[in-house]
């Protein structure tokens, strides 16, 4: 559902999504999944590297000068 609050005339409308809005949400899902995949890849690479080095995330931060 789509709630539209018009501040100028103080009207609130609640209606079903239009075909364009549904298509936009499907596109959003694809883009969100793409970014999520990118984030997961980055996290997995880091996890794999830490495992290879045999150190924890906290130890890696200490080595890099982080707190």
């Amino acid at each position: 559902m789509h709630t539209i609050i018009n501040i100028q005339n103080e009207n609130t409308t609640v209606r079903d999504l239009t075909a364009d809005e549904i298509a936009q949400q499907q596109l959003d899902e694809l883009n969100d999944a793409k970014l999520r995949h990118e984030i997961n890849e980055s996290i997995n690479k880091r996890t794999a590297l830490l495992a290879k080095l045999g150190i924890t995330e906290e130890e890696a931060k200490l080595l890099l000068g982080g707190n």
Partner: protein
Amino acid sequence: MSTGRLGAGDTAVQPTIFDAKGDLLAGSAADTVSRLAVGSNGTVLTADSAEATGLKWAAASGGASNWTQVATSSASGSTITFSGFSGYNSLMLEIDGVVMSSGSSVVLHFRPNNISTSSYKATYTYVLGSSTFGDTNTTSSMDPIFYGSSTGGRTLYGYYVITGCNSTGKKLYWGQGSHNDSSGTYGSRANSIVNGYLTETNAITSFVITTSGGFSSGNFTLWGSTN
């Protein structure tokens, strides 16, 4: 003090030129007098050569201006639009305890003037659980998003600010949202930070908040400032 009238044929300003309290006299050309009607409360007199009198009443710029509530809405359905507002150069969206439906991407999108893509240049940082991910959107293809929660009681709080809304140029935005959904889609204590600018020649007169899977609970409040 009383005001005397001159003869109709005399070259003089008649007091009948004034129609209301606050009206002013202004020159509209050489040797020509016009009435400038008083402006709205809070506006200031500004030079503008495009106007007949060379003057207009306009919203004050600079100085302090309080944030005023533009609108508020409970988080329900999948899309909320605040529309039909004007005169705010800065807008702030307050995200108050929002929970999104499970089984979806649980991502919150912000769209001034309902602009979805191709106009944003952003940097973003996401801290998901113990992992941090950051990048720069160099292709301008992504609108700003916050990662949310689909677990009641582990709710999303945050703010999103956009300035330059009355300008014909770029609008600068920034925001941060966080939740502590330890059993959620994105691990515990997800933190989303976005900064960037939106290229949009029109003033911002509407604001869309959307998530593909829908909202479960919470509230959104839009605040505005003339500065």
